[in-house]
């Protein structure tokens, strides 16, 4: 790590600011990934590499295909054509749960909190390699009790961090919309992923907490985790991301460090329509 832990832009030294450009050390590579719903081509990405150990933001107008692209990268949806390679593993035909076990974990734009389970049980579920998840071992608590205690300890620490400790034993279904977002992100971290894919993780989260969680995410990056996240709030994108990828109408139209994006003509056109020549104030989005 460099002395300046607030960003990891040195990882992008020498990388040109162009769509589809090669990275110095990509963890995830997508090639010719295309997905059409009937006549509508939702995603048509020629090439994208995601840099290991950096925070990459994926932005774009509503309906640009960001969520669909996430689904394709994590195998929750099957592309019509194209390949995705994560840490050297070709993901074609791999089940979604196996992708998670390879170390790439995603959250959902529309949260999937497990309503009739308590918050702490939601968290414990994220623990990987649990001995007690075998039916026969389940009958002998001494075989998994210690692991369960470790998982619970880690879960409690994360809940503290995400300001959910007071809801620990409540049903997740009683959480507010913002709290569900928090729970889902914390739960994804329970998997100890190498790479997290967060689909609008901070939508509806109050600004003060958002700030503290952004610091937490940066901390995770500094420990070596790769983050790819979708976000509409440009302040947050500017503040936290090391690299920004812009999608519009299914394609990647621009890439570069956050500072280079707002003045990019293709991005301005995508958000506001062409024939606009002022620099973009994306906050209005």
């Amino acid at each position, binding site marked *: 790590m460099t002395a300046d832990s607030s960003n990891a832009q040195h990882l992008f030294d020498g990388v040109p600011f162009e769509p589809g450009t090669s990275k110095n050390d990509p963890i995830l590579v997508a090639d010719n990934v295309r997905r059409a719903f009937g006549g509508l081509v939702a995603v048509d990405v020629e090439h994208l590499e995601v840099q290991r150990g950096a925070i990459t933001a994926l932005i774009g107008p509503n309906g640009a295909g960001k969520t669909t692209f996430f689904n394709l990268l*994590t195998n*929750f949806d099957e592309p019509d054509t194209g390949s995705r390679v994560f840490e050297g593993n070709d993901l074609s035909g791999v*089940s*979604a*749960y*196996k992708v*998670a*076990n390879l170390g790439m*974990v*995603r*959250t*959902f734009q529309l949260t*999937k*909190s*497990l*309503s*009739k*389970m308590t918050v702490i*049980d939601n968290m*414990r*579920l*994220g*623990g*990987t390699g*649990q*001995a*007690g*998840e*075998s*039916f026969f*071992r*389940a*009958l002998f*608590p001494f075989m*998994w009790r210690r692991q*369960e205690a470790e998982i619970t300890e880690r879960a409690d620490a994360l809940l503290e961090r995400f300001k959910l400790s007071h809801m620990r034993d409540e*049903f997740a*279904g*009683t959480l507010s919309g913002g709290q569900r977002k928090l729970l889902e992100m914390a*739960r*994804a971290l*329970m*998997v100890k992923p190498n790479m997290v894919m967060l689909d609008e993780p901070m939508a509806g989260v109050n600004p003060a907490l958002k700030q503290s969680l952004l610091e937490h995410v940066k901390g995770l990056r500094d420990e070596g985790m790769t983050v790819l996240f979708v976000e509409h709030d440009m302040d947050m994108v500017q503040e936290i991301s090391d690299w920004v990828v812009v999608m519009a109408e299914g394609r990647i139209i621009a890439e570069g460090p956050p500072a280079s994006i707002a003045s990019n003509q293709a991005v301005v056109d995508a958000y506001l329509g062409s024939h606009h020549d002022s620099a973009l104030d994306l906050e209005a989005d």
Partner: protein
Amino acid sequence: MDWGAIVQNSFRGFIGEPFIYFSLAAMGLNMHYGYTGLLNFGQAVFMAAGAYGLSMAVVTLGLNFWWGLLLGIVVFPLLLALIMGIPTLRLRADYLAIVTIAASEMFRIIARSPSLDRWTGSSDGLTAFANTFYDFNPFDKQKRYFFGLFIGNQMWVVLVGWIVLSLVALIVWMTMRSPWGRVLRAIREDEDAARSLGKNAYSFKMQSLMIGGIFGALGGMFRAIGTQSAQPQNFITDVTFFAWVALILGGAAKVGGPIAGAAILYGILNFTDVFLRQLVENDYIPESVMDGTQVGQVRFMLIGLGLILLAVYRPQGIFGTKEEMALDDR
């Protein structure tokens, strides 16, 4: 009015043979539906697997009783779960529902087909395959036990039934407090969420189908042992729906729900049966309104009415919690 008979019969329904085999079947459904969210509308076929696994092993194949237990409790239900689960468990929940209904009817119709008489005994079924079980009966066949409710052989059947029931309840209770049960509940709530956390939802659903199927098979086998006969008409679709009634009545996703549900269902069925009969016999109900032969139908109408009232006033079942129910609406 013979109040003694009324009380005795109601109590027998509460704890007797039908209570035991419907509790077992309903505990299987609880595993499927209550904990995993699988829709099984053919629990009767798992029950039939238990009954025919034992009886065919002994009568048709000439194996001993112990091989029969293995076939009926393990081999038949697991095969069935694989056959029904492999094509459907990757799909939406409704597909399993369709396949289980179809499988249970197919099994019944095939089993009673005359051309299979040599194997299944067709519509007469198979008999006298549980002698080994009764050889172990410690009770005196001539005597009555348990407040005079059961004669010796029945007492033996019911006692073993209670023990099996307790063991199954213990297994459900233990596994549902374990990480394994947690994954099942997560799949019930949202399969994709479970998958996104690295859980092989398909495999867990298959395990649930198998284990709930084995509970059902134990129920069916128990019924076959109690009557020393396995017949196709013991496994009509009504049997599946009785098990569902027991589950809904008691409350899904509670360990004791299906047991309480089955006890109450058979307690009420027996009570209304004897009570109405007595009312008719003693002319409290005139012949013009109802005669003795109609009692059987009327008691089901009363049960239906009771279920409607339950659905309106206590939709979570007798032992379910209202708070959990309310979460569905958010």
